[in-house]
């Protein structure tokens, strides 16, 4: 067991600690992040499932064949049912138009309801809807109907006792067109009520949950049988916006984990290189004592193996521990109770340990085994071995495979690679510029700093690349995160309209406008709305179109206006003046339908047909929370058809009661309370950004540790140099200043490089992964060098401080 004994002896000399701690650090970071992202991703997925109140939902406009439900039963799936429709309810001769949601005992399969049993009780969590004969209502309905808890409301021919105030439904907000206040009832009461008549607009939702295999089997059986009126909703389809936010967050977290791996590998690479150099002398001596190449390899592979094993095990344990602590600390922030850990993050940690050790520590060892024993007889130890290609290829390709595996995205891996390639090439260049510069003329400390930089030119290239990677990671993360969150913010602008009013009778428009003005609520324009179907394009019936786009499969809301809304932009064609006619088409729908300017569109509206030429293509922002239309007509074309009006406005929470006044004054108007939906989305975004910030913090710590590991690698040399300068009469102040200068310069060089690399990475990421618009970041170019100088300056100076502070005699003696 020579290798082990050598390992422990060498350890006692304090020299293997660096490579081991780099490895531990690497595995710890990755394991912690992998654990954390794994649990968070699963928590967020679970959270998103609550938006559906199930794992899968079958939506239908008619009751489905009971054979379908039996089949699900057979496969052991859990089931629930929702029947949703708009209806009038009555109490005390008051009538209200409400949105009734009748549920069975299965609902909700995922998530929970929150209700209050009395007006001043606090809310409680329940896992089922109301029992037959009871109903839960939103508190807003109580004054409107002049009822109290315990009173009854009439739904069609039945009376339901109001036993709870509904605070929260998991799946509220799955549709923007939930009209009116909510009444939650039990499906068993529906037949007796008689409110569902043939022709009523009713939506059926069948909820499913169960194990993945059974779900998969069930839905692949079901899918071919679905009609046009039926659709399967899952996590991604059910909530496109949340799903895409989740998807992006997931990618982002994996990107962070990948960068952590990269940082870690740089640390291991630095340490391993150092280790190899230091051991060249050892190996030359051992060889002269009779160790052959195979023996040397065996010894060092044995050492590396033992070291890797121990360090990885330690890293796995530490990473799991840190992650568990972090999750416990943040339990409150998790959308749902944090799911328990999988074993897969451990696998990730193990793979990382192996990849770092094999990829970055193996090449120096092979090189070591080739050491020429004749060196022992020479006076210089520099042994330039040109066969470095193994080291240049093995490490990066190990990382590439690892990151690819981690991120599951070749695009992301290539983006990272692009940034890295730029960085390594650039660091050599920047280093040359730094060393060749005329800074030495600036004085004593500058000369010492530059001398130090010059002496370590080769090593500094590596250091710049390493610092650069760390900084690049941080910059890219900060800016990518900012871009993401900004985009989310933009999706939900402050004071974005949070209420929609629909079904406004033309005669009510003026009165309502005055009412809003009196309350100083500024609304968007009141748009007339006529429902119609696009039936032909240039006399070609749309029924004959290949894979018919959504826009022709259902009725569209058609509108007309004189003024272009602020979020709308004409891309082609012209907006109307007083005389022109035609229809302006939303540009993406136009592309789907292959429309050209001047094409004749024929619409069917309530049995009558209308034709209009395409006058313009228009882009618009669906996220503006304003009423928006695929088809906008010139004033005049649709005036003869019966229209209702729609508007939206921002209502501050303290004015919420205005809704009641509005509904009381105009009972036929439907109100959509977007603020509740927005609140739900905001919650999710807050959680996502918190997750990102936590990962950022971990990354920062990893970056600083890598930095220190890199600086410590040169500490022996520095100690000696500092001791010599001090013996020659140099002051400590001078040395300190030169240290600050040296690392400040190194840091700003690395920062500059990181800025370039981060910009490149961001460009690739924004194009290939996040699908954000292309943007340059001038602040990055300022921030990079500045943060680099400060961070590296402080960390480097601190890491080297002992070289300045130790008595020179002691240093010279120990290093002789």
């Amino acid at each position, binding site marked *: 067991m*020579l290798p082990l*004994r050598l390992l422990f*002896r*060498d350890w*006692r*000399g304090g*020299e293997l600690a660096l490579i081991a701690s780099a490895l531990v650090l690497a595995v710890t970071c990755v394991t912690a992040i992998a654990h954390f992202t794994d649990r968070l991703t699963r928590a967020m997925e679970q959270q998103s499932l609550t938006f559906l109140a199930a794992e899968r939902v079958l939506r239908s406009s008619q009751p489905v064949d009971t054979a379908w439900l039996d089949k699900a039963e057979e496969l052991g799936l859990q089931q629930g049912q929702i029947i949703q429709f708009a209806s009038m309810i009555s109490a005390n001769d008051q009538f209200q138009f409400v949105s009734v949601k009748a549920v069975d005992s299965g609902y909700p399969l995922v998530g929970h309801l929150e209700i209050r049993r009395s007006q001043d009780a606090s809310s409680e969590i329940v896992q089922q809807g109301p029992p037959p004969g009871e109903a839960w209502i939103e508190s807003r309905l109580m004054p409107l109907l002049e009822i109290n808890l315990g009173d009854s409301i009439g739904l069609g021919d039945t009376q339901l006792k109001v036993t709870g105030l509904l605070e929260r439904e998991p799946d509220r907000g799955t549709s923007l067109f939930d009209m009116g206040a909510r009444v939650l009832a039990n499906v068993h009461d529906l037949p007796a009520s008689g409110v569902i008549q043939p022709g009523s607009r009713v939506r059926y939702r069948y909820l499913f949950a169960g194990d993945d295999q059974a779900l998969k089997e069930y839905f692949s059986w079901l899918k071919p049988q679905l009609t046009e009126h039926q659709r399967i909703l899952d996590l991604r389809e059910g909530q496109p916006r949340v799903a895409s936010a989740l998807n992006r967050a997931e990618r982002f977290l994996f990107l962070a984990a990948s960068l952590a791996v990269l940082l870690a590998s740089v640390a291991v690479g630095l340490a391993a290189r150092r280790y190899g150099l230091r051991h060249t*002398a*050892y190996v*030359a*001596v*051992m*060889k*002269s*004592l*009779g*160790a*052959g*190449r*195979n*023996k040397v390899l065996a010894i060092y592979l044995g050492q590396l193996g033992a070291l890797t094993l121990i360090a990885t095990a330690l890293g796995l344990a530490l990473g799991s521990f840190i992650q568990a602590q972090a999750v416990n600390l943040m339990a409150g922030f998790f959308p749902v109770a944090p799911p328990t850990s999988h074993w897969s993050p451990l696998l990730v940690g193990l793979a990382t340990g192996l990849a770092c050790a094999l990829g970055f520590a193996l090449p120096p060892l092979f090189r070591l085994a080739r050491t*020429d*024993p*004749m060196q*022992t*007889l*020479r*006076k210089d130890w520099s042994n330039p071995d040109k066969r470095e290609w193994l080291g240049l290829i093995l490490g990066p390709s190990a990382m590439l495979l690892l990151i690819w595996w981690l991120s599951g995205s070749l695009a992301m891996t290539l983006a990272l690679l692009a940034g890295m390639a730029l960085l390594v090439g650039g660091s050599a260049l920047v280093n040359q510029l730094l060393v060749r510069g005329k800074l030495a003329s600036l004085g004593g400390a500058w000369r010492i700093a530059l001398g130090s930089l010059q002496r370590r030119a080769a090593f500094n290239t590596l250091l710049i690349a390493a610092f650069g990677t760390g900084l690049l990671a941080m910059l890219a993360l900060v800016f990518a995160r900012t871009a993401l969150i900004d985009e989310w913010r933009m999706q939900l602008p402050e004071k974005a309209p949070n209420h929609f009013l629909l079904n406004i009778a033309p005669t009510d428009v003026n009165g309502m406008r005055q009412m809003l003005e009196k309350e100083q609520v500024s609304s968007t324009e009141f748009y007339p709305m006529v429902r119609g179907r696009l039936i032909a394009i240039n006399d070609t019936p749309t029924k004959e179109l290949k894979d018919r786009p959504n826009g022709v499969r259902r009725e569209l809301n058609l509108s007309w206006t004189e003024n272009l809304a602020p979020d709308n932009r004409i891309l082609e064609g012209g907006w109307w003046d007083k005389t022109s006619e035609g229809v302006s088409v939303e540009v993406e729908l136009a592309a789907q339908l292959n429309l050209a300017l001047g094409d004749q569109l024929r619409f069917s509206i309530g049995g009558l047909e209308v034709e209009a030429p395409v006058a313009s293509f228009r882009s618009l922002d669906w996220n503006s929370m304003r009423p928006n239309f695929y088809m906008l007509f010139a004033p005049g074309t649709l005036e003869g058809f019966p229209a209702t009006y729609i508007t939206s406005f921002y209502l501050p929470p303290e004015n919420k009661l205005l809704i009641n006044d509005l509904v009381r004054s105009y009972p036929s108007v439907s109100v959509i309370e977007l603020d509740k939906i927005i609140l739900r989305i905001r919650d999710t975004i807050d959680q996502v950004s918190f997750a990102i910030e936590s990962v950022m913090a971990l990354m920062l710590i990893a970056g600083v540790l890598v930095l220190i590991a890199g600086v410590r690698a040169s500490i022996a040399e520095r100690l000696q140099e500092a001791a010599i300068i001090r013996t020659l009469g140099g002051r400590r102040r001078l040395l300190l200043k030169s240290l600050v200068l040296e690392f400040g310069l190194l840091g700003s060089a690395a920062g500059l490089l990181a800025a370039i690399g981060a910009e490149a990475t961001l460009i690739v990421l924004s194009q290939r992964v996040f699908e954000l618009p292309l943007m340059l970041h001038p602040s990055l170019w300022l921030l990079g060098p500045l943060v680099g100088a400060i961070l590296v300056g402080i960390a480097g100076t601190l890491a080297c401080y002992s070289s300045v502070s130790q008595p020179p005699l002691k240093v010279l*003696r*120990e*290093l*002789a």
Partner: protein
Amino acid sequence: MSAILSAENLYHRVSTSEGPLTLLNNISLQLARGESLAVTGASGSGKSTLLGLLAGLDKPSEGKIWLAGEEITAMDEEQRAAVRARCVGFVFQTFHLLPGLTARENVMLPSELRGERGAAKRAEEFLAKVGLEHRLSHYPRQLSGGEQQRVAIARAFASFSGEDAILFADEPTGSLDAGNGAKIIDLLFKLNAESSTTLVLVTHEQRLAERCATHLQMSAGAVESYESLTGDDNLSEVSA
């Protein structure tokens, strides 16, 4: 006595950025068991190169070398390493102790590389012979130059595992002051006599060279003079 080390028409050339360079030019020599050879010459004349080749650290470009009855020029690196492990010991100018290992561990190293048992005990014996029995667990940085060289000598003698033992010393006093250097040389010759080791010594010092039975003087990679110093008996002088 049969020759334990002999070289025949050695040439050594290397290619450098300035073209091919001849380091050794037709060198032949013979050394009997228990004999001592001093190699002298100006700096850069090729002394260390010759030493390295004789010890099997590298292969000459041309010529043959027999060490302990085996032709090491016909061997590959692994085989030469095996010969070194058995028969060769080194003392270097700059000591070359492994800094992470204690004195005892440094001396244990050759035995451990051969996979022998009892390495620690053997190491302690040799350290006692060089007078360092009280510094067993000190690290090289805690020892003076002379002490470090004594550890290196102990390590060199711990390198032999059989009858055939050749000690190669490349300017063993080069990093030491005169007093320490003299002590080291005395020690070297004393141990050499005790265990009838063969000694190949590279040195600048004429005084030192004169204590060896054979003297090879080099100049620019070639033999300038090669003579056996008979007459006064070096060995008896040392043991006296």
